């Protein structure tokens, strides 16, 4: 039996999603990434005496939204709790979180596997909490610097059941969460900046065993790739350990993406008795049926439903529908082009091949794509009416991108200006056709002798002479008509 079939991997993920609320979890101050250190702070964020946390209503609404989107039960009355520990970037000496009564619980999400099947991953709970500040250890040789801008930023912690059976499944689960939080607009999903991050609990057990073995926890997984890499590394480490007669001990590990390995955190860093107790400064959070219905209506069509609709409604292929619905802004963009009158398939092709190429080349996000849906629909119409060739469409798109978002020139105007319109005018084409036929008597003779494949040769010559402006369909008709005159 190979090592891989001897063991089964068991993984549970704890994902933290930083919320896109205007203000912090418990203080009326801006919640924006990238401000100068210690500027987005109030006396509350700094832990000044006498300050009190007042929950941001959107923290609660976003939690409920994510709970509903992941099939969770929503607790009508939940309470905040204090998690007590000392750390310099924790100004109050405790973190406001939820402990015994998370606002959402017992949900699930279906993830797509590589073999095309789907798998259901249970969600144990989603709870609300605030983030700590940042300790910066590498900017000053003697001191640790503290930035409290992030202190009090609202977070949702999404805890999965230990249902995940491979690093790849963990990656797929993480992508799915990324997709959903972005669809819901509750989190920007930016893993590099830490607005979506994850800790993983992992253990291995002999295949067939029901009980879980001792697990390790890996922290600091800040990209999809690192989730898979770190888990792959850790699963291998545990297997080797067990096979060499050792045993796994419960510990907290840090993933080091530079060295591509996990390392143990100091035991002191993890030995905590958090002394949770109900947060006395905040009354219980009540979610009424009315509020629940209101939030349910705010939930947009989720990626899975949207993908299926694209296939049935627009006749797109599964691949095209998947690509378009992967990220909500792209799907929204697609639909906004359709709203301008474009038909679905050409619009899908334009996005998937041309626009995505531009985005890649320019390192740009779809939300900042400089050509709006109206002008793109115009471009598609030109092509649809056969007024431009497909290569001209590509040239035009590049030109429109280069002109930037301030340019108001329509695709038609630009095509005219750049001389890219296909010519269907026989007054212009007739002399060219005649000239080409006259200059190639051999080919004409062979064509008339039955070699009809040569039509392509004539069309090519004519297109060249017309500098690509000729409408190939029109050229074909003209050639077929005129060539008989050479009999």
């Amino acid at each position, binding site marked *: 039996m190979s090592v891989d079939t001897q063991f089964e991997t068991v993984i549970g993920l704890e994902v933290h999603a930083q919320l896109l609320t205007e203000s912090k979890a418990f203080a009326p101050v801006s919640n924006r990434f990238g401000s100068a250190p210690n500027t987005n702070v109030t006396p509350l964020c700094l832990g*000044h*005496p006498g300050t009190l946390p007042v929950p941001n209503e959107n923290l609660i609404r976003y939690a409920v939204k994510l709970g509903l989107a992941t099939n969770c039960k929503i607790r009508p009355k939940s309470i905040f709790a204090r998690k007590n520990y000392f750390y310099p970037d924790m100004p109050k000496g405790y973190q406001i979180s939820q402990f015994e009564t998370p606002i959402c619980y017992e949900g699930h999400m279906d993830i797509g596997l590589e073999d095309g099947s789907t798998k259901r991953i249970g969600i144990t709970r989603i709870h609300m909490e605030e983030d700590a500040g940042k300790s910066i250890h590498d900017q000053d040789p003697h001191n640790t610097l503290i930035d409290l801008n992030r202190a009090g930023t609202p977070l949702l912690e999404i805890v999965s059941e230990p249902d995940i059976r491979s690093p790849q499944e963990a990656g797929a689960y993480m992508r799915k969460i990324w997709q959903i939080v972005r669809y819901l607009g509750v989190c920007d999903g930016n893993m590099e900046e830490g607005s979506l991050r994850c800790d993983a609990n992992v253990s291995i057990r002999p295949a067939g065993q029901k009980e879980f073995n001792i697990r390790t926890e890996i922290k600091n997984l800040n990209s999809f790739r690192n989730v898979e890499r770190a888990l792959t590394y850790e699963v291998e480490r545990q297997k080797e350990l067990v096979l060499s007669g050792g045993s796994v001990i419960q510990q907290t590990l840090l993933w080091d993406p530079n060295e591509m390995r996990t390392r143990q955190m100091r035991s*002191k860093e993890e030995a905590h008795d958090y002394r949770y107790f109900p947060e006395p400064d905040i009354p219980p959070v009540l979610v009424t049926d009315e509020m629940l219905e209101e939030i349910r209506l705010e939930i947009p069509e989720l990626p899975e439903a949207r993908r299926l609709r694209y296939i049935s409604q627009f006749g797109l292929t599964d691949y095209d529908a998947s690509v378009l619905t992967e990220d909500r802004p792209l799907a929204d963009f697609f639909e906004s082009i359709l709203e301008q009158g474009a038909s679905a398939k050409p619009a899908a092709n334009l996005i998937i091949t041309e626009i995505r190429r531009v985005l890649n080349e320019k390192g740009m996000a779809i939300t900042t794509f400089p050509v709006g849906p109206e002008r793109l629909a115009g471009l598609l119409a030109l092509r649809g009416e056969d007024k431009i060739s497909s290569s001209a469409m590509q040239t035009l798109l590049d030109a429109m991108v280069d002109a930037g978002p301030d340019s108001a020139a329509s695709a038609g105007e630009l095509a005219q200006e750049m001389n890219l319109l296909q010519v269907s005018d026989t007054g212009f084409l007739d002399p060219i056709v005649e000239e080409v036929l006259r200059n190639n008597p051999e080919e004409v003779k062979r064509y008339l002798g039955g070699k009809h494949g040569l039509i392509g040769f004539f069309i090519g010559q004519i297109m060249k002479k017309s500098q690509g402006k000729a409408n190939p369909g029109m050229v074909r008709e003209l050639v077929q008509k005129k060539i008989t005159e050479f009999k």
Partner: protein
Amino acid sequence: MLESGELTVPDLVAGYISRIEQDNPDINAFTQWHKEESLERAHHIQRKIENGSAGPLAGVVLGVKEVFCQKGFPATCASKMLASYEAVYDATVVERLLAGDAIIIGRLNMDEFAMGSSNENSMYGPVRNPRNTSRVPGGSSGGSAAAVAAGMCHASLGSDTGGSVRQPASFCGVVGLKPSYGRVSRHGLIAYASSFDSVGAFGSTVHDASVILKAIAGRDDMDATSSTEPVPDYPALLDEVRPDITIGIPKEYFGDGLDPVIRDRVMLVAEKMEAKGAKLVDIRLPNLKYAIAAYYVLATAEASSNLARFDGIRYGHRADMKAVRARLKAEEAELTADGAADLSGLDTPMIRLYKQSRTEGFGPEVKRRIMLGTYVLSAGYYEAYYGKAQRIRRLIKQDFEQAFSKVDVIISPTAPTTAFELGSKVNDPLQMYLNDIYTISANLAGICGISIPAGDHSSDGMPIGVQFMANAFREPELLNAARLAEMVCGESADASSP
């Protein structure tokens, strides 16, 4: 007098200032007073009175306990930990008082972080009772009570977590009002035990206390636990005192440990109120005996967490880092000299800095309560202590609910004794804690209470306080009963020998 122009606001302030300058060295009620600022503000408010634009508190001169934040002034909580701390914003109550044109003349001594019943736990030294300076003023708002009793200000703000307004009011012979939990914003009140802390008012009369309450009560968006319950015009309600009320007499509040002179005095007040038309009813509050234990579990648990922010990192007392490092180096050298290879037991410099700063910054009573609270929340002990105490809290609430379904107010002594001698209980924390036996339940239940003076004790000559309690947000009933009691106490020329 102010309206008629006989007395101006600057005159008033100057009078209080000279009283403070004369008597404070003996009483030690004020930790600081703002002479120039107050006189300047007095002139400003005098002009407003003259041109008819003055707020409802024009002419009211207050002191505030060191537990409240007032922007630009120290907010020390009488602790070395915050000795150098200056508030960066106004507490909501301070803001509301100032908006009503009150003058805050200075800051008042207290037990460190509002922990204590005698005002002996203060970095400023003890406050002395103006009636007899060898006695304590009560605590923790000892300075607030003593200042009003000594005529150093018209009224004052205190905080009441287990009796810290009512007990010192009783000891000093003034009125001390503890509103219902949520009636007054706690924003800017430095927290001791968040689910118990109430902002309270001291005055010479029930009316004075009601004026302050009206000014500071009401919903505040900065405090999620503040109530949206409308704020009645408390002083106006006192224009017509209703004697036809039902007063509950809880047997448990008149048992062992209560000075018999005090017991008789409280009963006498009740009987005089009965003579005016009130109805007296015997009631039971059977869970009183568990109140102190439950309080010291729950309040200290919250305190252990609330005081965690005082770590010497961002503000407040910080131990000398050089000394901390040197000490750690010495410890490391000792360990290696002994041949120990494992240094993992040694603190990191950061952890040691926390420990040292907090060891130096907090006084013994504060440390005692932080340790107690940390213990009861620890893994394995939570249910036995915190969980059980929470259930007792619910039972006590139910006791009161039941009682208030039959009566408008409850009468009781405020404290089992009159003010005791300085130093007599400092080494016996349990005896000290028992002093709050009659006041602590109101904080557990979140209801309102008031202590009013009911004459002096026949043997020691110290003031006796009688307490009234009413259901949550029933301050109108509470103040009405207190005013009625105040009237009957005033009717005999000498209430101490009616």
